Every structure is written in structure tokens, then in C-alpha cells.
């Protein structure tokens, strides 16, 4: 019971002190999307445009800064001195961000559905896969470099390269649903989980080796 209460406390604290500004940016991203893309009366392929090209960026906004607090000064050392395992804290943060990304995607998908667009389970999963992959890429880059700027740089560059390279990126092409192909999405989700796990351990080793 106390473990559950601790978990709730960690999640609350993370939302308030770490994720809040990033969550606001994510909402801004969702609000900006209809100004750039059409979201009404779209078939499944056209609906992939706003979802894959814009809503998926929520992954970069919510996952990349996950371990940013520990990068600042002596906060890392303070956290390390706490009784609760930092591994547990990191995992709960990841889970919270993951759920928030899924909620943001489903919220936007719901709005598009209300506006008469065709929203499928594949589209929701596909957008989530792209978001998790981009975000996990940022997480790993931030953990390896120890600087959040590099963490944002890598997924943004990868995202831009997707426009230039297109389907040449093979199974890791982010915008495949715009071209009616779903087979890339399990790879992106799997790749995202692998990258996030790697980030998890890099951060853990970094904390331990202080």
C-alpha cells in the first residue's frame, strides 16, 4: 500500500515540477495542428497527415526532457541520496509520459473523428509508434550527451530527414501511413522501446557513477 502511495506521490510531483511546461507545449502543438492541416472529412490516408507529421511530435516534447531535472547541478546527487530507488522513479516517469502521449493522440483523434474524419485503430497505434520512437531517440541522446539541447537535436533532425529521404528509411520511416503502409509501425514501436530502455540504463549508470 505504501509503495502505491509512493508511486502516486512520484507521479504527482513529476507532473507538477517536471512535465507541466512540456504538457502545456503539447497542448499548444495540438491547438496549432488545425491551423496548418485540414482535420475535417478526411479519409484514413489523408487523416494520417496531421497525426503522423504533427501530433507525433508530442513524443519529442514529453519523452525527451524526462531526465532533464537530474542534469541540473546537484539535483542528481540529492535524488541519489533518497531512500526510494531512482530506477523506480525513472520508470514511473517514463510510464506517465507514455500515457500522456497516448492520451494526447487519442484526444486529437477523437476531435478528428468528431469532425468527420476516418480514424482507425491502426492510425492511433501508428501515431503512437512514431511519437514513442522520436521521443525515445531524444531521451537516449539527452542521456548520452548529458545535455537536453542534443536530446532535442537528434529527433528533430531525424524528423526533418524523413521529409527528405522518405521511404528510403525503410522500417523506420515515420510517415508510412500517409502512403498506406502500416508494416513500419511495429518496428518503430519496438525500436522506441529498445531506445527508451537503453536511455534508462545509460541514465542509471550515469547516476551510479557520480
Amino acid at each position, binding site marked *: 500500500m505504501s509503495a502505491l502511495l509512493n508511486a502516486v506521490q512520484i507521479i504527482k510531483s513529476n507532473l507538477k515540477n517536471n512535465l507541466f*511546461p512540456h504538457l502545456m507545449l503539447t497542448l499548444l502543438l495540438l491547438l496549432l495542428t488545425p491551423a496548418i*492541416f485540414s482535420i475535417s472529412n478526411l479519409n484514413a490516408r489523408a487523416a494520417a*497527415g496531421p497525426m503522423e507529421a504533427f501530433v507525433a511530435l508530442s513524443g519529442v516534447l514529453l519523452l525527451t526532457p524526462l531526465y532533464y531535472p537530474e542534469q541540473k547541478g546537484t539535483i542528481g546527487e540529492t535524488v541519489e541520496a533518497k531512500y526510494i530507488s531512482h530506477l523506480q522513479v525513472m520508470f514511473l516517469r517514463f510510464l506517465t509520459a507514455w500515457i500522456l502521449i497516448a492520451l494526447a493522440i487519442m484526444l486529437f483523434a477523437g476531435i478528428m473523428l468528431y469532425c468527420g474524419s476516418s480514424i482507425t485503430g491502426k492510425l492511433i497505434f501508428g501515431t503512437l509508434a512514431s511519437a514513442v520512437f522520436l521521443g525515445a531517440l531524444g531521451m537516449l541522446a539527452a542521456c548520452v*550527451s548529458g545535455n537536453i539541447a*542534443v536530446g532535442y537535436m537528434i529527433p528533430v*533532425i531525424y524528423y526533418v530527414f524523413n521529409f527528405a529521404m522518405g521511404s528510403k528509411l525503410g522500417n523506420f520511416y515515420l510517415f508510412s501511413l500517409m502512403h498506406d503502409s502500416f508494416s513500419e509501425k511495429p518496428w518503430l514501436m519496438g525500436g522506441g522501446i529498445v531506445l527508451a530502455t537503453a536511455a534508462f540504463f545509460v541514465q542509471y549508470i550515469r547516476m551510479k557513477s557520480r
Partner: protein
Amino acid sequence: MFFKECKKILFSLPYILIAIILVAFFYTQFYSGLKEDLSVPQPNDPAGYGIYAENDPALIMPAATDSLFAEFLSHSYIAYPQGFYKNITLSDSKQAQIAEILSEITGVPKEDFLAAEKKERTSSDTAVIDAGAEAEAENGDRYIVPENLTEADNSGTLDISVREDLSYEKFMELMDQADEIIGGESYYKSTSLANHFGQIPKDYEQALEEYETLMESGAGIASARLFSDYIGIFATLLPIFLAVWLALKDRISMMSELIYTRQISSWKLIGVRYLALVLMVMLVVFVLAGINAVSIYSICGAIDGLYMPFLFALGWIMPGVMISTAVGMVLTVLTGTPAAIAVFGIWWFLSLTKGIGNISGNYGNLTLLLRHNTMQNAAYFTENLGALAGNRIFYIILSIVLVLLTVYVFEQKRRGRFYVSIIKRRTDYQIKPEE
């Protein structure tokens, strides 16, 4: 101090990544096609000679009218306001305005267009029944659908050929009106008409003529324009990461407060860092400009204008590097967060996507990213040189203003003022006396 900052940047991970990305982009997007772009076209080339947009009214007017009529009937217009597909549905009053435009183009009364649209809407609401299929009549009897029930009633088909007495100037004016009603960046914008409705394949003679024009106007300057177009895209985006990295580095390593107490003036510290950041990014750009110049020499020989890639790097690309670095510094010093990446990233993305419709020449409206994604179109460059210069001077001045603002903010922070927080922090930390 300047060289220390340069050294720190040179061996940093973001700088190495920036250099790799710029070099990779240079080779894949620009360098790989350079030889082909500057080679004499050969007769009977099986790959063809590409396509070009011909501003031919005889080709454009009927095609654009057909397209506008089809979109009017479907009550749905395609536009690319930010470079992305947008499906626009117009209100009834705006549909009536489009009908009026179609009427002016074809001479068919506006009411006929509105009636055709109404009929189209009604028929699309009715379920389609295949001939030979079994259907149920209102009284419940089942019957086989006869052939004649599935055929469209063509008796009301409109003749939408363009009026013979309509001038191309008037046609373009009407198309601009339609574009404005749709909301802009549709297929009917007069400057985009040739691109959408006037594309035809080039033949050998045209390709040869184009090549000769290119050589006359200067291969060096044409290549430098294309180089600046490609490299400018990433050279404008990437410095933001480097600037944020450097500004956050002090904070992460707990050096900010220590630096605040040093004797060095804020002017010197911020100025030197800014110069080091801009210079180090430009160093990579100059190396690539050098490779470009050497390549032109190896393909075309000792022609005039081999120095052009360097001149364009300074005049075209550097203001982009300057503004990106300045935004990164001012917002990071002000907020102590990487918010600059989101702000500048969105600005850059919108500028890139908005300019997608005019990549062969776009210097106007203070656009962040200048576009000239072709070796051709020298006339656009000559005619709009003033706009190009104005655009770049604006960004140089804006960058200097932002750097001055950074110095001011930094100075205030040294004095313990100007704390900006995104989240409201607790301020009741004082221990209150026990009552």
C-alpha cells in the same frame, strides 16, 4: 577567451553532429547532382530532359477552369496554406462567389452552376444501386434494378469552355479572386497557375538552350544560389541547438553563478560567445563552399565567378546562422530552459513548409528561409536582388538587436534581477516564527 570558446565548441558533441549533418546534406542533396546540372545535354537521352512550366494561356485556361469547376461541384477545394494538404469547404455564400467567377470565365449563367452543384450534392446523398442488383420497392416487393436507372442524367451537363473574348490578364485576375475566396495557396493563385496547369516535357533543343543560358548567366553564380538554397535550410536550423547547448552548459555544470561574479563585462562575454558560435558554424559552411568552387572548376574550368559560393555563404547563409544563434542565446539566457528550440523550430518549420510552393524562387515577405532550388531562373534572382538584400539585412539587424537584448538580460541576472520562471515557484520558504 575567443579561441577558448571556439575550442570548446569545436570538440563538443552538438558541433560535431552539425558538421556531419551539413556535410551529409551537402553530398546527398547538392553535390551528387552538380555534375549532371552543369553538363551539356546529349541528344536522344532516354532519361528525358525533365519538365518545365510553360505560361501558355491556351494550356492553362481550360485546365484551370475544369479543375475549379470540379472542385466547385464537389464543394471541396484543395489548398496548401503551410505546404501541407488542406481540404477547404466553402460556405454557401462563398460557393455563390465561385459560381460567379465560373460564370464570368465561361459565359454560362451563375444560376446554372449553382443548380448543377445542388444536383451533384443531392445525387451524392443518394445510395448508388448497381444495375442487375436486387432492390426493395417502397411497398416491400423485390425487383431487379434495370440498366437505365443507373445511368447518369446528362441532360443538364454544362458547357464550361472558356469564353473566347476573355483575356489572360482578366482570367488571372479572376483566378486570384477564387484563390482569395478559398483562403490562399490554392491551385488558382496566378503565380502558381503555370506550375499546376502548364507543365510540359522539355525536348533536347530546349534543354540545350537552357544550358547555354546557364553558362551565359554564369555557372558559378547559379551553382552558388543552389548551394545556398540547400545548405541554408539546415545552416539556419542547426545553430539553435548549439547556442542552447552552450547557454545551458553553464547552468548544468553550476557555473552560472560563478561567471556572474567574474570581472569580465557582459558585453564581452556574450559578444565573444556569439561570435565564436557564428564563426564555428560558418567554418563548416565555408569548407563546403570551397568544395563547391573546386567542383565547378573541375567541371567547367576556370570560369568567372568561382568565388561566388563564398560570397553567397556570407550574404545568404550567414544571416540565417546569425538569427538562429541570437534567438537561441536570448531565450536561453532569459528563461534558463531550452524553450528557444521549440520557438525557433516552429518558426523554421512554418517558413520551410510555407515556401514549398515556390522553391524555384522566393525571397520575399521577410521569409526566414530563402529559396532558389534550381540552377535556372536567373531572371528571378536579378529582378528580386533588392528584396533578397533587404531580407538578409533585416535578419542581420534583428540578430544584433537580439544579441544586445541578451547582454541586457545577462547583466540584469548578474545583479540578481530578471528571474523568469515558466512555473510559479513557492516563495513561502521563510521560517515563520511560532505563534
